[in-house]
């Protein structure tokens, strides 16, 4: 296992449009880091640059302290799991998993031991003489992971490994990958566009957008203290509510409704500045508690989820979503009072989208 360091890593094709802009990032030994972002944000390109499958336009990639920019993939001691599994269709599962070891001239009994160990771990030991075409999607993905495990590489790279699976299988495989990481203690870099995967798997998440690193932190910090409106809107389902407001003394004015911002430092925000007020759906409540302030709203839409109901409400000119108890059944148009604890509110600069003040509690 090894650590990975990216320093000012950039990528451009034909010297024109930049796909990645000076990414700095450290992955610690044994850490599970997830690159997450929408399609086209550059996350897969960044992973492929670490693997050596894409050239590095500028900057430096280090694996285990060694600069690997000029090294081909086979010399980087990494293993990669691909989105389409990339299993060799003409080889049996055993041959697929043993391929990398045979190329490295590993003794045959050692190959057999490692393949059998990985196959048992992944519960595919009974089908090693089959070819990939005879397997289900989930089994193929297990083989692809097994092929990576047997190599015992310094770093595991996963490129959207679950996106070709159906929802139920995706959940199962997600838990298996998490368990695998706990068991192997491997350094893993994992790319996904699914923020649930990112939140559940990662020790740290790097949120990317438009080739920029928007935030790199623990899932908890990313969720509760988003650095930008993009992160606030991308992480969380439903995402953080973002409402336009203006700074009015020590309060945010939501068009008549004032949210006090006492004891917050809002560096650089002048009186009257255009802001965005962010609040997570679970922090909008229908019952007062503690220091909550009241916000007049009206029900627009109910989306029952069984354990709870997502209620879309009209708040001034904006629409917000609140996570309410399943018993809530007020019909659309009903006026209600929303309660929010001011310490759960995040504030962003409306123009740049950067956070001015994070919630002080969660």
């Amino acid at each position: 296992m090894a650590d990975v360091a990216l320093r000012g890593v950039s990528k451009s094709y034909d010297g024109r449009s930049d796909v990645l802009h000076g990414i700095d990032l450290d992955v610690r030994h044994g850490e599970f880091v997830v690159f997450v972002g929408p399609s086209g944000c550059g996350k897969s390109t960044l992973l492929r640059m670490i693997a050596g499958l894409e050239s590095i336009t500028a900057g430096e990639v280090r694996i285990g302290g060694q600069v690997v920019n000029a090294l081909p993939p086979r010399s980087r001691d990494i293993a990669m799991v691909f989105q389409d599994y990339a299993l060799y269709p003409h080889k049996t599962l055993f041959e697929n998993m043993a391929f990398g070891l045979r190329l490295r001239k590993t003794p045959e009994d050692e190959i057999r031991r490692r393949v059998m160990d990985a196959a048992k771990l992944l519960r595919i030991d009974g089908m090693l003489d089959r070819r990939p075409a005879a397997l289900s999607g989930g089994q193929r993905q297990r083989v692809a992971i097994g092929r990576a495990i047997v190599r015992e590489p310094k770093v595991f790279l996963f490129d959207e490994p679950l996106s070709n699976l159906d929802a139920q299988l995706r959940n199962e495989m997600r838990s298996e990958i998490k368990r695998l990481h706990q068991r192997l203690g491997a350094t893993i870099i994992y790319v996904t566009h699914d923020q649930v995967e990112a939140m559940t798997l990662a020790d740290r998440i790097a949120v990317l957008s438009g080739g920029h690193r928007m935030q790199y932190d623990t899932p908890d910090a990313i969720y509760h203290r988003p650095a930008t409106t993009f992160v606030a809107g991308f992480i969380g389902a439903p995402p953080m509510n973002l409402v336009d407001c203006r700074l009015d003394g020590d309060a945010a004015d939501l068009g008549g409704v004032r949210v006090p911002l006492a004891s917050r430092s809002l560096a650089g925000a002048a009186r009257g500045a255009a802001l965005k007020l962010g609040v997570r759906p679970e922090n909008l409540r229908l019952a007062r508690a503690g220091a909550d302030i009241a916000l007049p709203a009206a029900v627009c839409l109910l989306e029952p989820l069984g354990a709870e109901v997502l209620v879309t409400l009209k708040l001034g000119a904006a629409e917000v979503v609140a996570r309410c108890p399943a018993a809530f059944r007020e019909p659309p148009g009903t006026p209600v009072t929303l309660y929010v604890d001011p310490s759960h509110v995040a504030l962003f600069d409306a123009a740049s989208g950067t956070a001015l003040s994070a919630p002080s509690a969660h």
Partner: protein
Amino acid sequence: MAILDRVRDPGERTLAVVLLAPAFALLALIVVYPIGRIIYQSFFDARLSGGHGHRFVGLDNYRIAFHDTEFWTATWHTVAITLITVPAALVVGLGLALLANLPFRRRWPVRLALLLPWAMPLAFAGLIFAWFFHTEYGIVNDVVRRLGAGGEPTMWLLRPGWAFAAVCVTIVWKTSSFMALILLAGLTMIPRSLYEAAEVDGASHFQQFREITLPMLMPSIVVALIFRTITALQTFDIPYTMTRGGPADATETLAMLIHKTTIDYLDVGYGSTLAVAMFVLSLAVTTVYLRRLARTP
């Protein structure tokens, strides 16, 4: 059950027969009848000049063919051309396909260049190469001279061994592009991620070719070999236009001998016998290939 009932419905069956009849009739007319007619004809002495009319001779024509050195020589030339040009065209075609599959900025000029020899008529290619190999004016001797090989210019098409080699080179040039087109289609079907996985696994370019490209290309290779072998067994146009089968029958193929016997000597009975022999040869080779194809996973 409803579906079965419908199929068993006599009306439906009649309709099916009526709809299939034109295709069967056409097939019978252009495939079954000519083959049947040739087999039938091969049992007759049917010389159109100087013979004894249309006379049933049983297996006499086959007995004559069995002792006919010209038939065995032409058969051997045909087999030799097949054994030399088919693997050579496969190797050259595979090289061209790999080249055309490289990430060129503009792919269409490469693919057009690949298509041109294939699109050219066979007789045309034969005539062009006959000029290339011309003793005095040919580009081949010119290049040989410029490379510093002195002495008398080689008489490519006038010496048996060289003429056979020249015919083979021409056939390989003409047919490699067809091989390349089929193999290129196969190459483009191999997912890029397999090569990336192999690269990460530690495979060199040669190992990637041996472990991924070749096995995954095998179905395309078998298809290309079937088509090319069948046409190689029917080789006619190129040797006919380059050498007329000469010098001294050194480049005469079975198809040329059939043509000579039937058209030049007007011996339709014996010509048919030779045609049946060629048909049997083609059928045997095709059967072997198809069995191989059925085993390909």
